[in-house]
């Protein structure tokens, strides 16, 4: 994994500290071309990996990359699925069965279709595979060496103690996509224990790591203990704690952990991207 991973929250009006700032971002990135422009700037600064949700608009970015293969042939995307709000809003409106009907490809209620068979026989793994295929369709032909499940889903499965689902996901991603599976979580220590319990060793885990313990469930001490003592491949996110920390102090803190492989960050201006990249390379 590269040390520096460029994220996508800034493009989709995700700002954990301010709804106002989030709205300003959604205005700035109204056009897909403005997203592509910032990704290109990051590339020109030497960043080679973009981690993004399976948002519809990322599909358009992928189209652009497929149309310009020479420019992007060595560029990596780490998809994070699913785009959870799409499903959450659908469940509120349509119920769980209605949501499956809407998003599982093909006619889920026909016994002749693969989806229909999966539903009828309560083949949950089959349904999961169909949903994964649908989410990842937009990345066809693009390098995706690492594929993540989003924290909402990871943490839901974790809380429900359905750890075998992780195992099934892990196997499917390796087999079908020839990629490494990754996990985003707000509950890193508990997740690592859960993954280890079903035989998933040395997993790639992307999680909040910051000096003030923001979104580090269970407290900063146990996170630091796991970072120092346990075997896994951590990627730090929310390193600026939603803007509460200045980049320099935030990234110097990360330098304490020798096992930390990568830092995920998002920024909209060339100056911020450059500044953060240099800090990460100096400290990690």
């Amino acid at each position, binding site marked *: 994994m590269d040390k520096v991973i460029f994220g996508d929250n800034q493009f989709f*009006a995700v700002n954990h500290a301010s709804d106002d700032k989030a709205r300003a971002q959604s205005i700035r990135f109204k056009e897909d071309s403005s997203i592509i422009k910032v990704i290109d700037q990051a590339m020109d600064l030497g960043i080679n990996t973009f981690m993004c949700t399976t948002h519809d608009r990322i599909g358009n970015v992928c189209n652009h990359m497929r149309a310009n293969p020479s420019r992007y042939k060595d560029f990596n995307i780490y998809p994070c699925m699913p785009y959870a709000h799409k499903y959450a809003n659908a469940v509120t409106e349509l119920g769980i069965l209605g949501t499956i009907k809407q998003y599982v490809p093909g006619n889920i209620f026909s016994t002749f279709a693969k989806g229909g068979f999966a539903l009828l026989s309560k083949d949950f793994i089959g349904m999961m595979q169909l949903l994964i295929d649908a989410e990842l369709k937009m990345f066809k032909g693009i390098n995706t060496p690492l594929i993540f499940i989003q924290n909402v889903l990871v943490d839901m499965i974790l809380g429900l103690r359905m750890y075998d689902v992780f195992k099934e996901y892990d196997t499917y991603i390796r087999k079908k996509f020839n990629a490494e599976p990754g996990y985003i979580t707000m509950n890193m220590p508990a997740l690592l224990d859960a993954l280890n319990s079903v035989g998933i060793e040395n997993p790639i885990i992307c999680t909040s790591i910051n000096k003030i313990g923001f979104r580090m469930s269970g407290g900063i001490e146990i996170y630091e203990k796991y970072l120092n003592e346990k075997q896994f491949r951590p990627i730090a996110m929310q390193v600026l704690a939603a803007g*509460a920390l200045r980049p320099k102090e935030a990234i110097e803190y990360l330098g304490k952990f020798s096992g930390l492989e990568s830092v995920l960050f998002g920024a909209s201006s060339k100056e911020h991207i450059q500044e953060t990249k240099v800090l990460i390379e100096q400290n990690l």
Partner: protein
Amino acid sequence: MNNINGAIIGLGKMGLSHAAIVGAHPDVEMVAVCDTSSLVLGAFKRFSQVNVYSDYKEMIEKEPLDFVLIATPTRFHYPMVKYTLERGLHVFCEKPFSLNFHEGEELVRLAKNKGLVNQVGYHNHFIGTFRELKRLLQAKVLGELVHFTGEAYGPVVTKEKGSTWRSKPEEGGGCLYDYASHVLNLVQEIIGRPVKVIGSQLKSIYSKGVEDAVYGMLILDNGLSGLLSVNWSDETYRKMSTSIMVKGMNGKIICDATEIKIYLKEGSKKEGLEKGWTIKYITDFAIPVNFYLRGEEYSAQIDYFVDCIKNKKQSVFNNFEQGLYTDKVIEMIIADYKQQ
């Protein structure tokens, strides 16, 4: 003390989220779940260790429970909460509390008589910024209050389609019961209890049969008046966004789940607030939790509920009586709208 045993009835979006939070709680053993969907129960049977039921009465009779969390469509709240309380179990019930004030009143009385912990899922009270707003108003930093607005917007219904219980007003569907109830409950607990509503508007935008937006004026028990503006068909928002603005003689405060913006004409030494704007973020106020799913507030409210059970105390945040008062204001808004 031994672990507390809990069960969940209703495994929709909120029920699943609660099940994960309860399942991860170190002091709770989630022993059973109940739902009518064989698909959802099948997933629990296949992947989890909890017992599954399609009949909640059977679950309550057979399982050794301390509490039940009810996250079913609103019309089932009354019979389920009643049955659970009668068996001497503590209850956490999703919002809105009930569809009928008299039934809700009966449940408030029953919980009180039995001395059982009772809580409703108005999770905004477990968001640090709203707590801070309440504290600042109690400290009277704004001086005499003159006006407020309570708003919530989000993209739930953005197309003409769909038909579940949420599209039936008699079952507690619609923006009033779903979105607006959060705002009404926040206003009620932070600023004052609405005693009169005027000019209420219930507007359908894409839905058939239910409203997608609620507008109107609220008059509070302290005499203050303010505006309610709620719309769940607003796709300019990525997710539900709830905010409260309070205007006073000495300035104003605008508060949402991520930040609190304070403007003071005269600074407050006691609060360390200078004249002019001060902006504070949730990073300063987030309530620490052991498990995070979708927001600290969802875990914090369950932590609080469990703490009340463990320490045999009654909840001060979101008890049934407070939930019932919100139901009463909802009824006032419906009556006011129908009368026009």
